[in-house]
């Protein structure tokens, strides 16, 4: 796809999100969640470029969400909370990445899963600090010093999510075209060659891992600011699986894929849950099956007009 077509698609997508949020006020919440999950899924997609699937990235989402919950009382402004949560999550990503970037494939996936479940248990068991499964309420925050009422607050998070989504999509695009981003695919196809070229694969993967943690952290902070309530379930392994699901649904062929996947996922979930409450997971499963069987490159490849 040409740069211009992709930029046009992104613009249409952003306008459609804004129009939908304007026309149907109750969609604002759903779309904000979708954009946030799209950002997290974009990070998971970077790792997928290297052939590595993380089943634990919801840990970073939950970490950032709890960071916002703890800090919102002291740092009361969203424009400070967002970068702060992102920075803290990146640091966590660096520490964990130094460890997991040594492993590949099933070991990489399972280690991420295991670490995320350890973190989940900590959130659940340390009741005196985290209130266990009850979760924590996120105090009201200001936006650039301005207090916002309910509707204004919803618009503020939605616009912030959209701006951040566009920013990260651009960043990911530049990164994937850079030497380190191109080398990610080299990890998947011929890792030993990287080693013999003097480009350590672990460091190549670590950069992607820290970026993916930063994105998941941003997503977690946005979700906390939207839902105003955080629970350990945000870091449960099914939440990590959801991110992988979104990437496959949307397609890993371009940076728009995860966002298309996230919006489709959230909309299907909301509408299916409303109409067939007991069978919405069945519908999601059928959609995923259809994508895998008939559009391996996900929704993005359908838009692009050829199969990836």
């Amino acid at each position, binding site marked *: 796809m040409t740069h211009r077509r992709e930029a046009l698609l992104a613009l249409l997508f952003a306008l459609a999100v804004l129009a939908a949020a304007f026309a149907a006020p109750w969609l604002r919440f759903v779309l904000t969640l979708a954009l946030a999950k799209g950002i997290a899924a974009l990070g998971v997609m970077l790792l997928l470029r290297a052939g590595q699937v993380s089943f634990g990235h919801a840990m970073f989402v939950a970490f950032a969400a709890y960071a916002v919950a703890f800090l919102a009382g002291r740092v009361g402004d969203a424009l400070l909370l967002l970068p702060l949560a992102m920075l803290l999550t990146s640091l966590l990503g660096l520490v964990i990445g130094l460890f997991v970037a040594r492993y590949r494939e099933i070991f990489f996936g399972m280690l991420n899963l295991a670490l995320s479940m350890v973190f989940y248990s900590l959130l659940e068991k340390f009741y005196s600090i985290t209130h266990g499964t009850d979760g924590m309420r996120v105090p009201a925050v200001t936006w650039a010093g301005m207090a916002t009422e309910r509707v204004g607050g919803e618009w503020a998070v939605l616009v912030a999510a959209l701006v951040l989504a566009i920013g990260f999509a651009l960043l990911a695009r530049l990164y994937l075209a850079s030497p380190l981003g191109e080398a990610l695919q080299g990890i998947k196809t011929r890792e030993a060659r990287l080693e013999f070229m003097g*480009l350590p694969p672990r460091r190549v993967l670590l950069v992607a891992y820290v970026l993916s943690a930063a994105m998941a952290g941003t997503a977690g902070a946005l979700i906390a600011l939207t839902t105003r309530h955080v629970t350990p379930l945000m870091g449960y392994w099914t939440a990590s699986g959801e991110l992988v699901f979104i990437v496959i649904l949307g397609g890993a062929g371009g940076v728009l894929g995860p966002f298309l996947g996230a919006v489709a996922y959230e909309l299907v979930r909301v509408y299916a849950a409303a109409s067939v409450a007991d069978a919405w997971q069945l519908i999601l499963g059928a959609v995923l099956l259809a994508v895998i069987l008939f559009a391996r490159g996900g929704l993005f490849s359908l838009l692009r007009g050829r199969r990836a």
Partner: protein
Amino acid sequence: MKPILQAQGLRLAFGGVKAADGIDLDVGEGEFLAIIGPNGAGKTTFINMCTGWLKPQAGRILWRGQDIAGLPPRRITAKGIARSFQLPQLFTEHTVLRNLALAIAAREGAFSLLRPLLRPGWTEEAMEIMRGFGLEFLADTRADALNEGSRKLADIAMAVALKPRLLLMDEPTSGVAASEKLGIVETLARVLRETGVSAVFVEHDMEVVSRFADRVAVWSQGRIVANGPPQAVLADPDVRREVIGIEDAHAAP
């Protein structure tokens, strides 16, 4: 000739098989050294030890006087030793151009996140290298769609793109059509001679060896059984019988 690489008393055995059983071998500055010998003799093991993939159980590998045995491959690459592979190791989902650009990026330091891989200077250099190997018309072909000969050339081109001082090649002409072999080696030799790069190549084609090697070492069962100029070594009746498989009609009874 001043040696840049000196192997001293290298030993490495896999189970009971001695791939290297006390190897002493020098490579001179700008020299082309061919290693010949039967399959399974330990020739590839030598390349693997010199590039850090395998650690010798005993002995030293001196690079300009400094022992590099057991260093990780990327540290050895950084010192100016590159290798190519018997089975080409390409990034199969990338085009040939991108494969080469990645090698250039690895050499130049790839840690700039926001500049593209295919930046003007690097693309031109990659095209230049591809022209040297006659690969320029395949620039936009994915590596997994290449034929065996082109794959082999691209593999060597990637090692050359690292601008090494010493290039180790594992059977550079295997898998290449017989009619193309000499042309390819000629091109390669020209590129390397121009820049004064030393080369070690494991080779089974005796015509390639006699034309391009400055010196030949014969590797058999983990030992070097002959070492000298090609004319002398390739004329040795023992070498001809044991390694090349030619029984001279007039050989002594």
